[in-house]
């Protein structure tokens, strides 16, 4: 079992999904968020036309940039490392999450760090970095407001760009009251600015006193050995400006060649994520504090993490490495918005999670996820780097079959079907009977309320009845006519 698999709950997807669907608080939070996400992105993309640009042209360009980098990733990593070192940064490598934890703790010890402020990094979730730091006696403080909320709740983020999307205002109020040592008050949305202010004041003190800042990187720019950080809150700027040590923890696939490539991707990333034409803060960080500088870290360390990524290169799943973590696929996914992110059981939810979780934690450890799809391809059609998410999920399902990982009942049913399909006369006779039987089950409105042999299927929905004749019968009748 891989280190990542140990922390994955993805095998319990079905059970968790059931729980989530029946949780009214969660459902309220999700129903509120979905139209906002979808509407904002649509508006942002439509506005491209004002500047004679369009989504398809831009995403073709973004796809090409990411493909170009992945096609020679060894070369680009080499160039990045060379140039980052030339700026005075240190470049370290980590095979997996545990190695990330070891390296960060080591750096922290070397610099006498007791507290680290963190800007959102999904990789640090993969690595369970907060646990590793806490075990070593170093206090990790999440500073993205959403991450701060889920950290107080002792939970994991449920969305890659809106980590606390599953939390209602009442839940946030209870957490703040507890952490900030005050009584719980009744809150309405009019109080959200005050609550944000309260968190700002608490977190400001952490920014000023932490000795280490930990961030991810939205991109690594090879040209100059630079980390690109995109945030709206400004916490990314804080953790990379104030502490004396800055550690960038990021995946090896995050490289783009030039500043120009970065500019192209930036026309798509914020629009895909929140519909914004640009995020409030885009920081390009190169090396350490220079001579005469008043601020900036004295020590900058990049930790370039594999944790399963290299294995995707040259595989049928290489396209997945193009992902720029915008969240559009989950924002448009009917399954995600029925369940929320926690049902998926590991770091990445939604369609991209349904592909990444089995690939990074083992296909056998996340059997349900590639099936958690209606096949509607909403995700594929909004992905800014044109990742064919449904096709990749489909490929994972095929691999489950090839490796004999499907349950015996399903395998038996498929064998029976194959046997039957090889005998046309019998097949026609059987399907005729089956269709008549379904017709008989239906009520007057043409709906089946309880499906005889699979009542679970109709527990929460009706099945519309078929026409009453099989395809073969209809086809024959048509040919005759």
């Amino acid at each position, binding site marked *: 079992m891989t280190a990542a698999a140990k922390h994955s709950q993805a095998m319990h997807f079905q059970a968790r999904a059931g729980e989530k669907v029946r949780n009214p608080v969660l459902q309220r939070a999700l129903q509120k968020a979905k139209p906002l996400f979808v509407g904002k992105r649509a508006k942002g993309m439509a506005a491209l036309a004002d500047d004679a640009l369009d989504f398809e042209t831009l995403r073709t360009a973004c796809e090409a940039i990411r493909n170009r980098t992945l096609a020679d*990733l060894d070369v680009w990593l080499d160039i990045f490392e060379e140039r980052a070192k030339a700026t005075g940064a240190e470049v370290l490598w980590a095979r997996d999450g545990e190695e990330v934890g070891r390296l960060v703790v080591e750096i922290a010890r070397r610099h006498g760090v007791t507290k680290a402020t963190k800007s959102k990094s999904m990789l640090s979730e993969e690595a369970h970095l907060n646990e590793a730091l806490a075990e070593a006696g170093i206090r990790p403080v999440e500073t993205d407001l*959403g991450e701060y909320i889920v950290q107080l709740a002792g939970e994991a983020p449920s969305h890659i760009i809106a980590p606390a999307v599953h939390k209602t205002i009442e839940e946030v109020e209870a957490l703040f009251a507890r952490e900030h040592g005050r009584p719980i008050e009744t809150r309405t949305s009019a109080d959200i600015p005050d609550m944000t202010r309260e968190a700002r004041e608490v977190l400001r003190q952490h920014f000023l006193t932490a000795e280490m800042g930990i961030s991810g990187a939205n991109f690594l720019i090879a040209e100059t050995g630079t980390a690109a950080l995109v945030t709206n809150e400004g916490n990314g700027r804080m953790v990379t400006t104030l502490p004396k040590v800055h550690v960038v923890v990021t995946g090896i696939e995050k490289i783009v060649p030039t500043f120009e490539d970065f500019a192209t991707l930036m026309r798509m990333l914020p629009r895909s994520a929140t519909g914004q034409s640009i995020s409030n803060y885009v920081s390009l960080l190169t090396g350490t504090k220079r001579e005469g500088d008043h601020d900036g870290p004295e020590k900058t360390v990049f930790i370039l993490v594999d944790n399963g990524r290299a294995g995707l290169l040259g595989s049928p799943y290489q396209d997945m490495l193009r992902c720029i973590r915008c969240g559009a696929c989950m924002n448009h996914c009917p399954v995600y918005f029925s369940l929320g992110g926690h049902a998926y059981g590991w770091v990445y939810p939604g369609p991209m999670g349904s592909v990444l979780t089995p690939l990074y934690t083992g296909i056998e450890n996340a059997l349900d996820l590639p099936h958690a799809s209606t096949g509607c391809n909403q995700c594929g059609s909004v992905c800014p780097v044109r990742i064919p998410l449904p096709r990749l999920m489909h490929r994972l399902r095929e691999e489950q079959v090839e490796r004999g990982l499907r349950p015996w009942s399903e395998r038996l049913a498929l064998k029976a079907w194959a046997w039957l399909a090889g005998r046309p006369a019998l097949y026609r006779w059987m399907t005729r009977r089956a269709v008549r039987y379904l017709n008989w089950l239906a009520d007057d409105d043409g709906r089946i309320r309880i499906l005889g042999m699979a009542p679970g299927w109709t527990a929460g929905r009706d099945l519309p009845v078929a026409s009453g004749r099989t395809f073969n019968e209809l086809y024959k009748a048509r040919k005759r006519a």
Partner: protein
Amino acid sequence: MTARDTILGRVRQGVGKDDFAQRKAAAQGLLAARSRGPQPVLSGGLVDRFRVKAESLSSTVEAVPDLRAAPAAVARYVAAQHLPPEIVMTPDVASLEWAASGVRGVARAAHDVDRVGVTACFCAVAETGTLMLLSGPDSPATVSLLPETHIALVDTACIVATMEDAFALLRAERGEIPRAINFISGPSRTGDIEQTIVLGAHGPCRVHLILIGAPS
């Protein structure tokens, strides 16, 4: 085997090509070419576009005829917002005539208690209404970050169309890139509590731009 060698070995295997030196030379050629992706076509003038976009991102804008008018504009804004007339500024704007304007300015990096920070900017991007600030001895990054109010002086002659143009200008004017390039687009914001947008998450909650050399 070190982690580096293991990972790069795996990557090389996945990439499935040998000729490393040749490919590296090709990559370096690609870096030198700096080719751009699809470029926007901005209608209207750059200054107008910058202004409209900046305002749509919740920045406020005042135009003044020249740089000498900037301190008085800062003083007016600070008074209108009922802020104390004490500012921290980046050294690159310290040579302006602050004394006569009525604000007391000190040029240094910002501290937590500073309420108003005044900076210049290296250039501004019209496409998105964005400021480009470079960190350096004359422009500490904290001044645009810690105070609740950030006032930026934007020379209209320094407004370029796109981020790509801003990078080109940077390469032309500075030999080496600074530790931090900060693109700033309006006040800091968050939507993390029930997707309600609030200004002033961790950075400034007000960004005021003084456009220099524009007809008001």
